């Protein structure tokens, strides 16, 4: 690799002057640049995070919650907390090669449950993305289409997902489909609405500018409407992942086989209490990771926002 291009040294929010002259051949430069930037950027961000007051505060936050749980359940056996599984029991069970209640990081059923839940969320999320984003964009771009579709959407949206359960079971005869459908539904509304808001948030003069630079309508849609709505679309997708997990667990508790929601419910009915907490914490972790993944994709697609220091 050649000497690091000077772009890489441009920390977000900094300067015009560090820009390398546009002399080198483009492809070679791009490859070198991305590799170099990525490695350095990662290290830089990690270092900054560890040195920031954020890291110790985060550890402190976790310690406080865990400490409270430990004291309330294991040490003082406070009323109401007495019946709950304590952290020592949960952690021992979770990491046991031979778990007393049948679920730990060494049992395959644990991963089957995670996988089933992840798969359902992924399918539902993809459907929500594939249907919700185009629908929301169309609603934003065409007033006519919006006039007859928006009221319907706004009427259906406030219906709690749980209210759909009987219909979902009636509609789909299998075990799997009703759960995916419920999960999809929640994600779909969030996605559609935000795509619509995204289009409406676009400065009208940007569209005018594109038109008077000679862009035909479909080109305006592709080059202005879609990227202009992207920040809102990703906000919608973040919300969608969140509500997906929410309605997934609700669905799994009522219908379906396997999955973390199912695990919680079946552990409850068979009094395997530590397993409930294991499943809950696992939900927290996978929920967080899926949200982070969506955010990472968004940041990648909207590099201009982080680089430009935001607008």
């Amino acid at each position, binding site marked *: 690799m050649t000497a690091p291009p000077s*772009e890489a040294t441009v920390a977000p929010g900094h*300067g*015009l*002057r560090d*820009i390398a*002259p*546009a002399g080198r051949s483009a492809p070679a430069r791009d490859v070198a640049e991305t590799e170099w930037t990525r490695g350095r950027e990662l290290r830089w961000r990690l270092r900054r995070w560890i040195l920031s007051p954020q890291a110790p505060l985060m550890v402190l936050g976790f310690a406080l919650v865990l400490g409270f749980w430990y004291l309330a359940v294991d040490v003082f056996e406070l009323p109401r907390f007495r019946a709950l599984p304590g952290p020592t029991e949960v952690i021992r069970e979770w990491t046991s090669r031979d778990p007393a209640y049948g679920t730990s990081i060494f049992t395959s059923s644990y991963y089957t449950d995670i996988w089933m839940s992840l798969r359902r969320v992924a399918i539902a999320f993809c459907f929500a993305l594939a249907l919700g984003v185009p629908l929301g964009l169309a609603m934003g771009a065409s007033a006519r289409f919006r006039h007859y579709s928006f009221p319907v959407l706004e009427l259906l949206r406030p219906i709690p997902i749980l209210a759909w359960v009987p219909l979902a079971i009636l509609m789909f005869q299998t075990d799997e489909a009703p759960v995916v459908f419920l999960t999809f539904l929640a994600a779909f509304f969030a996605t559609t609405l935000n795509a619509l808001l995204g289009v409406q948030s676009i*400065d009208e*003069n*940007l569209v*005018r*500018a*594109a*038109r*008077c*630079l*000679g*862009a*035909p309508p479909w*080109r305006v849609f592709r*080059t*202005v409407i879609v*990227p*202009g709505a*992207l920040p809102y679309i990703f906000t919608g997708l973040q919300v969608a992942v969140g509500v997906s997990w929410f309605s997934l667990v609700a669905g799994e508790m009522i219908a379906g086989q396997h999955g973390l929601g199912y695990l919680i419910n079946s552990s409850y009915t068979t009094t395997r209490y530590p397993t409930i907490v294991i499943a809950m914490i696992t939900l927290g972790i996978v929920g967080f990771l899926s949200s982070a993944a969506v955010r990472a994709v968004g940041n990648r697609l*909207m590099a*201009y*926002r982080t*680089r*430009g*220091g*935001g*607008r």
Partner: protein
Amino acid sequence: MSAVVAQAPPGVNAGAISIREVGKSYGEGKGRVVALERCSFEIAPGEFRVIVGPSGCGKTTLLGAIAGFHPITEGEIRLDGELLCGPGVPQARPGGDRVVVFQHSTLFPWMTVLDNVTYGPVVQGRMTRDEARERARDQLAAAGLVGYEDLYPGELSSGVARRVEIVRALVNEPRVLLLDEPFRGMDSITKSVMQQGLLELYDRSRVTVFFITHDIEEAVFLGSRVSVMSTRPGRVQATIDVDIPRPREVGVLTSPCFRELVGQVSELVRDEARRAFEAGERELA
């Protein structure tokens, strides 16, 4: 009139604009607002025409009608004799021959400077991406904007962004460049740099310019002719030739000739503003 012709030949693509008896009203019945009424004037090819007038005199409405953002209700607008809008065609079609630079930046924030500048030629299919890029680099360089190509608009200062936007418009070789108070809200130092930059670009391209402003010194410094618009009805009240030779430097700003022209225009604008204000008062009473 002769002042315009005497200065320099118009650019190759520079178009002539003819505005005849144009009227534009919003709403109906009691709430009807007349923005333009029997507004007529001509702009010669390669002329730098500045429109000044009090707020609400219909300057921006007129610009929007030429650009094709909204329909007119009466009269006609022609570009090189071709009907843009008029009887039977209420609204012009926006197109790359009439490019607008707005008061607030409309650079696409998700595109780099280079992609912004090549946007017009590429979407119009006039050039391949590579040709457009080469041309854009040349034009940016000519405007003194080297090193910004790969930055996003959010990384530019407002002055640089403004210049990029003007280059983005000029790269299309429009028949007329429409500017709607492009330097409004800038501090006076930036503004003067911007004006100088715009004049350099104008002197090079000799495109026809339609420039709206509130700033009378700016109007006289930039314009070949300055038209003062009146409110209710919105139409051109008077047009003044600016017989100051080009290229113009900042030194012009202190010349007696410049001061006198500014005085003349100020007087006209003041009269119009007072009339508009009084008309407003009467309406409220």
